[in-house]
């Protein structure tokens, strides 16, 4: 106790400030590390694939597309790049959606999926595949994502009504989300019963989740969605952080908790709905990405929100690279691999932290 550093007294800077800055600095370093890992995984994802493009060809093709012959240019720019980028956008969107939902519902199992959003999207997609409806002004290839999006947004709207009616009670929201999940699941199963084998397989394929159908339009929509919503999330980092200290404390600080829950669920639903509607239900990223970020970065949402985006994107990007290399010549649906990549990452951190997080 007597050993107060003379330097600190001279600077008249509190040691708490120095320690706090050091902690924050360490976290920004971790964010930088995650970004580098993400770039590396993007590169792995780009060079993975059956076309026999060399790393050198890809690099020069990215810098100057004219150097590649047309066939390769199409593979790189119209297949690999959008697939690799949608992995980042969807992973990031699910990561942000998941972390905000977990914080605001104070539930480590909360994710866009426990709100029933993904199963509603599956329901919409199943309807599109089996009934093959015609919607005016919507081209046929866009009908499936449109209906999946409608399903997801409709279920979010119902969840929001529940938030309002229950005055923001988190228990109600979680229970209702789970009820929605089972309801949508049951209805979707009904569609599967009447589906022929081909349609049934299509539904299963969609429900597992895969990135290979994405093009630049999808990449743009999901990225824009993430970029537009992220600043709104960052504006509430202080309130989200203090909410981790408990609801009573937040309320005594004058935080309108029901209002906060509403806004967060609106944001999280939009993110999850757009992320899921193009690529299917890529489970797990929205649940585990945030937990990995929490274990690496702690609870300060200034670094936790960007960290969760990076972790979500990293898991999905690694899974995407793995999906093309695991079995030569076969693309394993990425939805299977997110769990394969995510669980070891998650477990190793969990054991390292001895279950404390």
């Amino acid at each position, binding site marked *: 106790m007597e050993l107060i550093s003379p330097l600190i007294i001279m600077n008249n800077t*509190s040691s*708490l400030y120095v320690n706090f800055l050091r902690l924050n600095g360490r976290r920004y370093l971790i964010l930088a590390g995650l970004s580098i890992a993400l770039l590396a995984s993007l590169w792995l994802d780009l060079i993975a694939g059956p076309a026999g493009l060399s790393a050198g060809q890809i690099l020069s093709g990215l810098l100057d597309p004219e150097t590649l012959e047309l066939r390769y240019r199409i593979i790189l720019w119209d297949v690999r790049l959008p697939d690799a980028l949608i992995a980042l956008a969807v992973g990031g969107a699910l990561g942000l959606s998941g972390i905000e939902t977990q914080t605001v519902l104070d539930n480590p199992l909360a994710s866009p999926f426990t709100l029933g959003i993904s199963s509603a999207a599956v329901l919409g997609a199943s309807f599109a595949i089996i009934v093959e409806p015609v919607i005016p002004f919507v081209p046929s290839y866009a009908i499936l994502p449109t209906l999946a999006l409608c399903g997801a947004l409709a279920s979010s709207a119902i969840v929001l009504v529940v938030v309002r009616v229950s005055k923001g009670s988190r228990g109600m929201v979680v229970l209702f989300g789970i009820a929605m999940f089972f309801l949508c699941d049951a209805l979707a199963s009904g569609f599967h019963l009447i589906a022929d084998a081909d349609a049934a397989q299509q539904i299963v394929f969609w429900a597992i989740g895969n990135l290979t159908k994405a093009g630049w339009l999808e990449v743009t929509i999901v990225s824009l969605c993430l970029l537009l919503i992220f600043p709104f999330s960052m504006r509430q980092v202080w309130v989200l952080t*203090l909410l981790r200290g408990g609801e009573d404390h937040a309320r*005594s600080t004058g935080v309108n908790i029901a209002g906060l829950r509403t806004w967060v669920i609106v944001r999280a639903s939009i993110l999850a709905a757009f992320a899921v509607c193009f690529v299917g239900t890529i489970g797990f990223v929205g649940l585990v990405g945030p937990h990995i970020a*929490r274990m690496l970065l702690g*609870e300060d949402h200034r670094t936790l929100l960007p960290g969760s985006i990076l972790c979500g994107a990293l898991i999905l990007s690694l899974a995407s690279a793995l999906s093309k290399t695991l079995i030569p010549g076969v693309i394993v649906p990425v939805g299977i691999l997110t769990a394969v990549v995510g669980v070891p990452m998650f477990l190793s951190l969990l054991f390292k932290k001895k279950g*404390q997080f």
Partner: protein
Amino acid sequence: MVLKVSDVSAFYGKKQILKDISFPEIPQGSLVGLLGPNASGKSTLMRCISGEKKCQGTIEFKGQNINETSQKLWYDVVATMPQTPPSPTALTPTELMWSTARSLALPLSDKDLARKIETIFDNLGLRSFELSPLQSLSGGKRQLVGLALALIRDPELLLLDEPTAALDLQWRMIVLDWVKKRVEETQTIAVAALHDLDMAARFCNILVLINEGEIVAVGPPEEVLTTGNIAHVYHVETELGLSQRGNLQIDVIGPIASRG
């Protein structure tokens, strides 16, 4: 700078919790003890004063009526330490203090804020835990963090809902003694809902005893804590005496059979 409470009534649904609560103006520099059995309306009255719950009647502080003041202005001068301590998460006390200060938009530079947090932590013996996860702290330490959070705003009216429930004897004394000194030095007001009558008698200048949503007695401890009042409110028979040091001592003899 006084606190006025008159004709305050509050409801949960149709059930009336507070019935026309009034007490004399509380002068600055007072530590007020709010006493009463469970479900007597203590916490509800605290919530009405803090602005968390809407109520009928008049609550005024520094001449400002709660119903005519914006929430922001009211929360700038009035701070509550809730009964539940901060949740045991991986959040650290410093992060919680920092995010609370920033959510409240306190006009402090980062350096000044750090110095302020440091001073509060020093006073409450929390310095060695400043960057420990809350989940590694005992319930008592977390309750002290709860007090620290209320103090970050330099409140002129500090509301403490059972501030000592999770604390051991030593910290109970330290906290109440410290709150009393702070109130006297800064000439502010603190209102604490308390269960411990001995502690209330020892540290508070004014006691407010309520039962079933109504005021039973208001005044200095020796006037409020009479065997009659205690029997009426808590249904126990007591003998009052003075310790060798001159502190009021309440010797509980036993429960009184219900008088129907």
